């Protein structure tokens, strides 16, 4: 494992472009370990998104031992900087490169065209090439399970939702949560607070306090730090973890959590690269394939609620339930997805409207 720190990276930035044009791609020989590179948008210590990707990297090392050699570059901003970093990884003999944020899409595609012998994988994007695959997780499936629990456990019928940015990924989560919640509790409503950051523990905690002060007795979040859960614990209300099991921060308050589990995917793709069976595919999978997981329910979750949540989870796995299956009403109460229909992947990927049960209007 080699660590390239942000500081060193910026110092190297100039040299990188030069070196990449001079150094020919070393030919991989069978005895050499497979070199796997990762590009992260945040610090590996965020205990959220990047942390989980890095767990996947460590899982590869644990699984393949000396057969792989991994490198990561953390806190790479999603601008021009990213292209240099990706190119550097490609030019230094990496065989398989994972770029783990949406904003790396175009830089990854550009570098992939220049290095046809290197395999690339881009998370959460939609542009592919012969040597560029894409992958993402259906986190909204997890939100449906959380919504079920929240709907059954709320007493004030107000759920506080701390949201990062008004992009389809986040809106989809809010809507999936609301639909599942209203199925078990038609009176419950969601108050959304946008904090305009993925990651600011202080602000996330403040948002949780504001929502609790306004009557929310369950908090859920689409931001990365455990701060909202800590606030929930201190104020005696409930909440859900994000990306990781966060129960150590809120042993009483955490009802459950959505766990991003990239490990099986990363292991599978690395194995394919080693065995020569790798091909460019698009993967968008969820609970069924273990990419979205849950820790054990918190001690505060009653047996009947746990059972109902299990039913939702299992029905999503066996396909009998789709989180966006009709009838679905928008905020005005009009039916937008008719009974018996489900929203297409394309509609979900571009989602920019709220369903019934969400208060306020979506910032544009």
């Amino acid at each position, binding site marked *: 494992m080699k660590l390239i720190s942000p500081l060193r990276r910026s110092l190297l930035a100039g040299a990188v472009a030069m070196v990449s044009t001079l150094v020919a791609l070393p030919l991989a020989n069978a005895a050499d370990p497979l070199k796997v590179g990762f590009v992260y948008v*945040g610090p590996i210590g965020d205990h959220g998104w990047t942390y989980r990707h890095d767990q996947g990297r460590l899982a590869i090392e644990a699984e393949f031992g000396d057969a792989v050699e991994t490198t990561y570059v953390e806190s790479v901003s999603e601008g021009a900087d990213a292209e240099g970093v990706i190119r550097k990884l490609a030019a230094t003999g990496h065989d398989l490169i994972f770029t783990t944020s949406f904003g790396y899409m175009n830089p990854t595609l550009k570098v992939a065209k220049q290095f046809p012998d290197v395999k690339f994988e881009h998370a959460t994007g939609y542009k592919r090439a012969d040597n560029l695959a894409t992958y993402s997780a259906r986190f909204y499936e997890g939100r449906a399970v959380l919504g079920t629990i929240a709907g059954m456990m709320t007493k004030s019928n107000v759920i506080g939702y701390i949201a990062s940015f008004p992009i389809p990924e986040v809106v989809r989560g809010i809507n999936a949560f609301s639909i599942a919640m209203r199925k078990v509790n038609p009176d419950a409503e969601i108050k959304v607070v946008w904090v305009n950051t993925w990651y600011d523990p202080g602000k996330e905690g403040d948002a949780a306090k504001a929502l609790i002060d*306004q009557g929310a007795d369950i908090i859920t979040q689409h931001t990365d730090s455990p701060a909202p859960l800590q606030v929930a614990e201190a104020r005696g209300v409930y909440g859900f973890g994000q990306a990781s099991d966060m129960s150590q921060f809120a042993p009483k308050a955490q009802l459950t959590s959505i766990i991003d589990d990239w490990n099986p995917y990363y292991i599978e793709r690395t194995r394919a690269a080693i065995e020569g069976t790798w091909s460019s595919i698009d993967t968008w999978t969820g609970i069924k394939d273990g990419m979205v997981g849950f820790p054990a329910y918190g001690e505060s979750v009653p047996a009947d609620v746990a059972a109902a949540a299990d039913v939702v989870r299992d029905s999503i796995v066996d396909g009998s339930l789709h989180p966006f299956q009709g009838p679905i009403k928008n905020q005005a109460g009009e039916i937008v997805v008719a009974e018996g229909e489900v929203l297409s992947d394309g509609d979900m990927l571009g989602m920019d409207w709220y369903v019934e049960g969400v208060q306020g209007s979506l910032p544009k």
Partner: protein
Amino acid sequence: MSETVILTLLTIITAATPLVFAAIGELITEKSGVLNLGVEGMMLVGAVSSFIVVSVTGVDVLGVLAGVLAGMLLSLVFSVLCLTLQASQVATGLALTLFGIGLSALAGQSMIGVAYEGLPKLSIPILSELPVVGQLLFSHDILVYVSFALVAAVAWFLYRTRAGLVLRAVGDSHDAAHALGYNVVAIRYLATVFGGACSGLAGAYLSMSYSPMWVENMTAGRGWIALALVVFASWRPWRLLFGAYLFGSISILQLHGQAIGLDVPSQLMSMLPYIATILVLVLISRDRGKIRRNAPACIGKAFHPTT
């Protein structure tokens, strides 16, 4: 409803306190004529140090002291570079921030996911039993009281003591202060290290009270807001306290506004502290007399006793 108002005010107090600490320290530093842009870095190193010490020893006081000490050490590095070796203050300050981000991330690697219940609330007997006022004024953790005391102490020091007068003289005209026989470099060392101690304390408050945990880059730009706040307050301690609470209120009330359903763009609210600072800069620039009265004239200028 009144309960909601009280809770909101309590949240504002916790949001304003780290700004008060970081900004009041920087105010003293700048008043001595030194511009240290490394506040964010010093806060982070303070935050990680206090969290490490408190989770290893379990003693709150040691944690706070570790944060203060770490901030002081980092500001000492800055002082050696800028005051002794005459490096550029702006460049060194920025480097200090970048260094602090990296150093704190490295030091805190094993602290990720470690839980700590936070500084205990220090309820003052009898007084904290009072309705409304008791909850609002007399039931915080110790650092909140310290922040108020610190502002009062700094205001008294700057404008009511001889030492404060000397500090201001050094910041306004280091040549004149030097000619009068004052050790300009030594005084600036002290002022800068005081600023570092306060930034470290701000960091300790973040990781021990505000959101008791360590995660990388947890200051999330508060060091820069503190720097803006010093200018916003036109280098006056009580205005600084007011400004910190104003900035704190804006950030908290916009969250409440959203929860109520007001359609105010939250991005605009996030900009407000900076817009307010720019406005103040424009306003004080119109009146040159006001600048002279408050802004340290020698800010950012290198001084060497032999020249």
